[in-house]
Protein backbone atom coordinates (compact mmCIF):
# COMPACT_ATOMS: atom_id res chain seq x y z
CA UNK A 1 0.00 0.00 0.00
CA UNK A 2 1.25 3.45 -0.89
CA UNK A 3 0.64 6.95 0.41
CA UNK A 4 -1.16 7.53 -2.87
CA UNK A 5 -3.69 4.84 -1.92
CA UNK A 6 -4.34 6.63 1.33
CA UNK A 7 -4.67 9.93 -0.48
CA UNK A 8 -7.01 8.31 -2.97
CA UNK A 9 -9.03 6.78 -0.13
CA UNK A 10 -9.69 10.27 1.20
CA UNK A 11 -12.04 10.70 -1.76
CA UNK A 12 -14.46 8.37 0.00
CA UNK A 13 -14.79 10.69 2.95
CA UNK A 14 -18.41 11.33 3.88
CA UNK A 15 -19.77 14.54 2.32
CA UNK A 16 -20.98 15.74 5.74
CA UNK A 17 -17.37 15.88 6.97
CA UNK A 18 -16.38 17.92 3.93
CA UNK A 19 -19.36 20.21 4.39
CA UNK A 20 -18.44 20.57 8.05
CA UNK A 21 -14.92 21.73 7.18
CA UNK A 22 -16.35 24.22 4.67
CA UNK A 23 -18.76 25.66 7.21
CA UNK A 24 -15.99 25.96 9.81
CA UNK A 25 -14.25 28.39 7.49
CA UNK A 26 -17.40 30.35 6.82
CA UNK A 27 -18.19 30.54 10.52
CA UNK A 28 -14.71 31.80 11.18
CA UNK A 29 -15.07 34.56 8.56
CA UNK A 30 -18.43 35.60 10.01
CA UNK A 31 -16.92 35.65 13.47
CA UNK A 32 -14.09 37.94 12.38
CA UNK A 33 -16.53 40.35 10.71
CA UNK A 34 -18.81 40.37 13.76
CA UNK A 35 -15.89 41.00 16.11
CA UNK A 36 -14.61 43.86 13.95
CA UNK A 37 -18.08 45.44 13.81
CA UNK A 38 -18.48 45.10 17.56
CA UNK A 39 -15.10 46.69 18.30
CA UNK A 40 -15.85 49.56 15.87
CA UNK A 41 -19.23 50.13 17.54
CA UNK A 42 -17.69 50.19 21.03
CA UNK A 43 -15.01 52.67 19.95
CA UNK A 44 -17.59 54.92 18.25
CA UNK A 45 -19.89 54.79 21.29
CA UNK A 46 -17.03 55.61 23.66
CA UNK A 47 -16.01 58.56 21.47
CA UNK A 48 -19.57 59.93 21.37
CA UNK A 49 -19.99 59.55 25.12
CA UNK A 50 -16.71 61.34 25.79
CA UNK A 51 -17.67 64.18 23.46
CA UNK A 52 -21.07 64.57 25.11
CA UNK A 53 -19.63 64.40 28.61
CA UNK A 54 -17.01 67.04 27.80
CA UNK A 55 -19.58 69.32 26.15
CA UNK A 56 -22.10 69.20 28.97
CA UNK A 57 -19.64 69.34 31.85
CA UNK A 58 -17.93 72.27 30.13
CA UNK A 59 -21.19 74.17 29.85
CA UNK A 60 -22.27 73.42 33.41
CA UNK A 61 -18.87 74.40 34.76
CA UNK A 62 -18.99 77.63 32.80
CA UNK A 63 -22.42 78.50 34.15
CA UNK A 64 -21.29 77.74 37.69
CA UNK A 65 -18.19 79.82 37.16
CA UNK A 66 -20.21 82.80 36.06
CA UNK A 67 -22.85 82.28 38.70
CA UNK A 68 -25.65 81.73 36.18
CA UNK A 69 -28.40 79.20 36.81
CA UNK A 70 -28.78 76.21 34.44
CA UNK A 71 -32.06 77.46 33.05
CA UNK A 72 -30.99 81.04 32.34
CA UNK A 73 -30.15 81.66 28.66
CA UNK A 74 -26.74 83.03 27.76
CA UNK A 75 -27.08 85.13 24.60
CA UNK A 76 -23.33 85.18 23.90
CA UNK A 77 -23.35 81.42 23.41
CA UNK A 78 -25.80 81.48 20.55
CA UNK A 79 -25.56 84.98 19.22
CA UNK A 80 -22.73 84.28 16.79
CA UNK A 81 -23.32 80.62 16.01
CA UNK A 82 -24.10 81.29 12.38
CA UNK A 83 -21.16 83.36 11.22
CA UNK A 84 -22.52 83.58 7.67
CA UNK A 85 -25.71 85.39 8.68
CA UNK A 86 -24.40 87.32 11.69
CA UNK A 87 -24.67 91.04 11.46
CA UNK A 88 -21.05 91.96 11.67
CA UNK A 89 -21.49 95.61 10.87
CA UNK A 90 -19.48 97.80 8.56
CA UNK A 91 -16.26 95.76 8.97
CA UNK A 92 -17.75 92.95 6.82
CA UNK A 93 -18.24 95.30 3.96
CA UNK A 94 -14.59 96.23 4.09
CA UNK A 95 -13.64 92.67 3.08
CA UNK A 96 -12.43 91.35 6.44
CA UNK A 97 -12.57 87.54 6.96
CA UNK A 98 -15.69 86.39 8.83
CA UNK A 99 -13.77 84.93 11.81
CA UNK A 100 -11.72 88.10 12.21
CA UNK A 101 -14.84 90.23 12.11
CA UNK A 102 -16.53 88.02 14.66
CA UNK A 103 -13.56 88.13 17.02
CA UNK A 104 -13.32 91.87 16.77
CA UNK A 105 -17.06 92.21 17.46
CA UNK A 106 -16.91 89.91 20.47
CA UNK A 107 -14.07 91.78 22.05
CA UNK A 108 -15.31 95.28 21.41
CA UNK A 109 -16.58 97.36 24.31
CA UNK A 110 -15.93 97.01 28.02
CA UNK A 111 -16.57 93.28 28.51
CA UNK A 112 -15.18 90.18 26.93
CA UNK A 113 -17.69 87.56 25.83
CA UNK A 114 -15.04 84.85 25.71
CA UNK A 115 -13.34 85.58 29.00
CA UNK A 116 -15.25 82.82 30.82
CA UNK A 117 -13.78 80.30 28.40
CA UNK A 118 -10.23 81.48 28.98
CA UNK A 119 -10.68 81.30 32.71
CA UNK A 120 -12.28 77.88 32.57
CA UNK A 121 -9.56 76.40 30.41
CA UNK A 122 -6.74 77.51 32.63
CA UNK A 123 -8.41 76.58 35.89
CA UNK A 124 -10.31 73.38 35.47
CA UNK A 125 -8.87 71.21 32.70
CA UNK A 126 -5.63 69.36 32.40
CA UNK A 127 -2.99 70.55 30.05
CA UNK A 128 -3.76 68.31 27.05
CA UNK A 129 -7.45 69.15 27.08
CA UNK A 130 -6.64 72.80 27.46
CA UNK A 131 -4.38 72.66 24.42
CA UNK A 132 -7.01 70.86 22.35
CA UNK A 133 -9.85 73.19 23.23
CA UNK A 134 -7.68 76.25 22.78
CA UNK A 135 -6.99 74.98 19.26
CA UNK A 136 -10.70 74.52 18.60
CA UNK A 137 -11.34 78.10 19.61
CA UNK A 138 -9.04 78.93 16.67
CA UNK A 139 -7.01 81.77 18.10
CA UNK A 140 -9.80 83.66 19.81
CA UNK A 141 -8.22 82.86 23.19
CA UNK A 142 -4.60 81.99 23.81
CA UNK A 143 -5.05 80.15 27.14
CA UNK A 144 -2.05 80.09 29.50
CA UNK A 145 -1.40 81.23 33.01
CA UNK A 146 -1.71 84.94 32.37
CA UNK A 147 -5.21 84.54 30.89
CA UNK A 148 -4.26 86.60 27.94
CA UNK A 149 -7.07 87.41 25.56
CA UNK A 150 -5.78 88.34 22.14
CA UNK A 151 -8.84 90.15 20.89
CA UNK A 152 -9.08 92.31 24.02
CA UNK A 153 -5.47 93.25 24.53
CA UNK A 154 -2.61 91.81 26.54
CA UNK A 155 -3.14 90.78 30.14
CA UNK A 156 -6.65 92.10 30.40
CA UNK A 157 -8.89 90.59 33.14
Amino acid at each position, binding site marked *: *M*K*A*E*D*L*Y*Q*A*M*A*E*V*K*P*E*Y*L*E*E*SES*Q*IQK*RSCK*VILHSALIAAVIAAAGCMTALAVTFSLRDSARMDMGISKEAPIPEWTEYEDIGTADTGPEAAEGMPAQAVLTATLCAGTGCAHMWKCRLLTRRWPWFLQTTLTGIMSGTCSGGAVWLHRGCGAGRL
Partner: protein
Amino acid sequence: MTDEEILTLFFQRDENAIEQTRLKYHAYCEKIMKQILKDRQDREECWNETLLRVWNAILPQKPENFKMYLAACARNLAFSYYRRLTAQKRGGGEVELALEELSECVQISETPEDSVLAKDLGAAVNQFLKTLDAKERGIFLRRYFFTERTKEIAKRYGLRESNVLMILSRVRKKLTLYLSQEGYPI
Protein backbone atom coordinates in the same frame (compact mmCIF):
# COMPACT_ATOMS: atom_id res chain seq x y z
CA MET B 1 -30.25 27.98 -9.59
CA THR B 2 -30.41 25.63 -6.61
CA ASP B 3 -28.65 22.25 -6.46
CA GLU B 4 -32.05 20.55 -6.46
CA GLU B 5 -32.98 22.28 -9.72
CA ILE B 6 -29.65 21.38 -11.33
CA LEU B 7 -30.10 17.74 -10.28
CA THR B 8 -33.59 17.74 -11.76
CA LEU B 9 -32.09 18.92 -15.06
CA PHE B 10 -29.54 16.09 -14.86
CA PHE B 11 -32.32 13.58 -14.29
CA GLN B 12 -34.26 14.99 -17.24
CA ARG B 13 -31.04 14.62 -19.27
CA ASP B 14 -31.22 18.31 -20.09
CA GLU B 15 -27.83 19.58 -21.28
CA ASN B 16 -28.47 22.90 -19.58
CA ALA B 17 -27.54 21.03 -16.37
CA ILE B 18 -23.90 21.03 -17.52
CA GLU B 19 -23.96 24.77 -18.18
CA GLN B 20 -25.62 25.53 -14.84
CA THR B 21 -23.09 23.33 -13.01
CA ARG B 22 -20.28 25.11 -14.79
CA LEU B 23 -21.67 28.51 -13.82
CA LYS B 24 -22.19 27.60 -10.19
CA TYR B 25 -19.28 25.32 -9.32
CA HIS B 26 -16.48 25.78 -11.83
CA ALA B 27 -14.63 28.31 -9.67
CA TYR B 28 -14.98 26.12 -6.57
CA CYS B 29 -13.74 22.95 -8.29
CA GLU B 30 -11.00 24.90 -10.06
CA LYS B 31 -9.63 25.89 -6.68
CA ILE B 32 -9.49 22.25 -5.56
CA MET B 33 -7.90 21.09 -8.81
CA LYS B 34 -5.38 23.91 -8.72
CA GLN B 35 -3.82 22.44 -5.57
CA ILE B 36 -3.14 19.22 -7.46
CA LEU B 37 -2.53 20.29 -11.05
CA LYS B 38 -0.34 23.24 -11.91
CA ASP B 39 -1.12 23.50 -15.58
CA ARG B 40 -4.26 25.40 -16.55
CA GLN B 41 -4.88 23.31 -19.63
CA ASP B 42 -4.66 20.10 -17.59
CA ARG B 43 -7.21 21.53 -15.16
CA GLU B 44 -9.53 22.50 -17.98
CA GLU B 45 -9.38 18.97 -19.41
CA CYS B 46 -9.91 17.56 -15.95
CA TRP B 47 -12.95 19.78 -15.37
CA ASN B 48 -14.53 18.74 -18.68
CA GLU B 49 -13.98 15.11 -17.79
CA THR B 50 -15.51 15.71 -14.37
CA LEU B 51 -18.66 17.06 -15.98
CA LEU B 52 -18.79 14.10 -18.32
CA ARG B 53 -18.36 11.65 -15.42
CA VAL B 54 -21.10 13.39 -13.46
CA TRP B 55 -23.39 13.34 -16.48
CA ASN B 56 -22.83 9.60 -16.88
CA ALA B 57 -22.73 8.62 -13.21
CA ILE B 58 -25.46 10.71 -11.64
CA LEU B 59 -28.16 8.23 -12.71
CA PRO B 60 -29.57 6.20 -10.98
CA GLN B 61 -27.98 7.49 -7.76
CA LYS B 62 -28.85 10.97 -6.53
CA PRO B 63 -26.13 12.59 -4.43
CA GLU B 64 -27.22 14.00 -1.09
CA ASN B 65 -24.78 16.89 -1.33
CA PHE B 66 -24.18 17.87 -4.94
CA LYS B 67 -21.42 20.37 -4.17
CA MET B 68 -19.34 17.85 -2.24
CA TYR B 69 -20.09 15.14 -4.80
CA LEU B 70 -18.65 17.40 -7.50
CA ALA B 71 -15.70 18.32 -5.27
CA ALA B 72 -14.87 14.64 -4.72
CA CYS B 73 -15.20 13.87 -8.46
CA ALA B 74 -12.99 16.80 -9.44
CA ARG B 75 -10.38 15.92 -6.83
CA ASN B 76 -10.25 12.24 -7.83
CA LEU B 77 -9.91 13.02 -11.49
CA ALA B 78 -7.29 15.67 -10.80
CA PHE B 79 -5.35 13.12 -8.79
CA SER B 80 -5.63 10.56 -11.62
CA TYR B 81 -4.29 13.23 -13.95
CA TYR B 82 -1.52 13.95 -11.48
CA ARG B 83 -0.51 10.28 -11.41
CA ARG B 84 -0.44 10.16 -15.18
CA LEU B 85 1.55 13.37 -15.39
CA THR B 86 4.10 12.34 -12.78
CA ALA B 87 4.71 9.26 -14.89
CA GLN B 88 5.52 11.74 -17.67
CA LYS B 89 7.48 13.94 -15.20
CA ARG B 90 5.04 16.81 -15.57
CA GLY B 91 3.38 16.72 -12.19
CA GLY B 92 3.97 18.96 -9.22
CA GLY B 93 2.19 21.15 -6.77
CA GLU B 94 1.15 20.83 -3.16
CA VAL B 95 0.06 17.22 -3.56
CA GLU B 96 3.66 15.95 -3.52
CA LEU B 97 4.16 17.36 -0.04
CA ALA B 98 0.84 15.93 1.14
CA LEU B 99 1.80 12.49 -0.16
CA GLU B 100 5.17 12.69 1.53
CA GLU B 101 3.46 13.50 4.82
CA LEU B 102 0.97 10.66 4.40
CA SER B 103 3.70 8.16 3.58
CA GLU B 104 4.55 8.00 7.29
CA CYS B 105 1.10 6.51 7.94
CA VAL B 106 1.43 3.53 5.58
CA GLN B 107 4.01 0.98 4.65
CA ILE B 108 5.15 1.23 1.06
CA SER B 109 4.79 -2.24 -0.41
CA GLU B 110 3.04 -3.92 -3.30
CA THR B 111 1.55 -7.23 -2.21
CA PRO B 112 -1.81 -8.66 -3.37
CA GLU B 113 -3.03 -8.47 0.22
CA ASP B 114 -2.30 -4.76 0.30
CA SER B 115 -4.43 -4.09 -2.76
CA VAL B 116 -7.37 -5.82 -1.06
CA LEU B 117 -6.82 -3.75 2.06
CA ALA B 118 -6.55 -0.57 0.02
CA LYS B 119 -10.10 -1.10 -1.18
CA ASP B 120 -11.42 -0.92 2.37
CA LEU B 121 -9.23 2.01 3.24
CA GLY B 122 -11.95 4.55 2.48
CA ALA B 123 -14.26 3.03 5.07
CA ALA B 124 -11.41 2.87 7.60
CA VAL B 125 -10.58 6.53 7.00
CA ASN B 126 -14.21 7.45 7.58
CA GLN B 127 -14.24 5.51 10.84
CA PHE B 128 -11.04 7.21 11.89
CA LEU B 129 -12.40 10.68 11.09
CA LYS B 130 -15.36 9.91 13.31
CA THR B 131 -12.99 9.63 16.30
CA LEU B 132 -11.55 13.13 15.76
CA ASP B 133 -13.05 16.34 17.04
CA ALA B 134 -14.52 18.74 14.48
CA LYS B 135 -11.54 21.09 14.37
CA GLU B 136 -8.94 18.34 13.92
CA ARG B 137 -11.11 16.68 11.31
CA GLY B 138 -11.55 19.98 9.47
CA ILE B 139 -7.84 20.76 9.40
CA PHE B 140 -6.98 17.19 8.36
CA LEU B 141 -9.44 17.33 5.47
CA ARG B 142 -8.35 20.79 4.36
CA ARG B 143 -4.85 19.37 4.02
CA TYR B 144 -5.40 15.87 2.66
CA PHE B 145 -8.68 16.18 0.81
CA PHE B 146 -8.60 19.76 -0.48
CA THR B 147 -4.76 19.72 -0.52
CA GLU B 148 -4.54 23.26 0.82
CA ARG B 149 -1.26 24.75 1.99
CA THR B 150 -0.66 24.77 5.74
CA LYS B 151 -0.27 28.55 5.61
CA GLU B 152 -3.66 28.86 3.98
CA ILE B 153 -5.27 26.56 6.56
CA ALA B 154 -3.70 28.55 9.40
CA LYS B 155 -5.09 31.79 7.98
CA ARG B 156 -8.58 30.40 7.61
CA TYR B 157 -8.71 28.90 11.08
CA GLY B 158 -7.03 31.89 12.74
CA LEU B 159 -4.10 29.76 13.93
CA ARG B 160 -0.35 29.96 13.54
CA GLU B 161 1.19 27.76 10.87
CA SER B 162 3.22 25.93 13.53
CA ASN B 163 -0.04 25.06 15.33
CA VAL B 164 -1.52 23.65 12.14
CA LEU B 165 1.62 21.59 11.51
CA MET B 166 1.47 20.28 15.05
CA ILE B 167 -2.21 19.34 14.76
CA LEU B 168 -1.55 17.58 11.45
CA SER B 169 1.38 15.68 12.90
CA ARG B 170 -0.72 14.60 15.89
CA VAL B 171 -3.57 13.45 13.65
CA ARG B 172 -1.19 11.51 11.38
CA LYS B 173 0.17 9.69 14.43
CA LYS B 174 -3.36 8.86 15.50
CA LEU B 175 -4.10 7.62 11.97
CA THR B 176 -1.00 5.44 11.97
CA LEU B 177 -2.07 3.89 15.27
CA TYR B 178 -5.63 3.44 14.07
CA LEU B 179 -4.60 1.77 10.83
CA SER B 180 -2.20 -0.58 12.62
CA GLN B 181 -5.00 -1.58 14.99
CA GLU B 182 -7.19 -2.26 11.97
CA GLY B 183 -4.55 -4.59 10.57
CA TYR B 184 -3.02 -2.37 7.94
CA PRO B 185 0.74 -2.82 7.50
CA ILE B 186 2.53 0.17 9.01
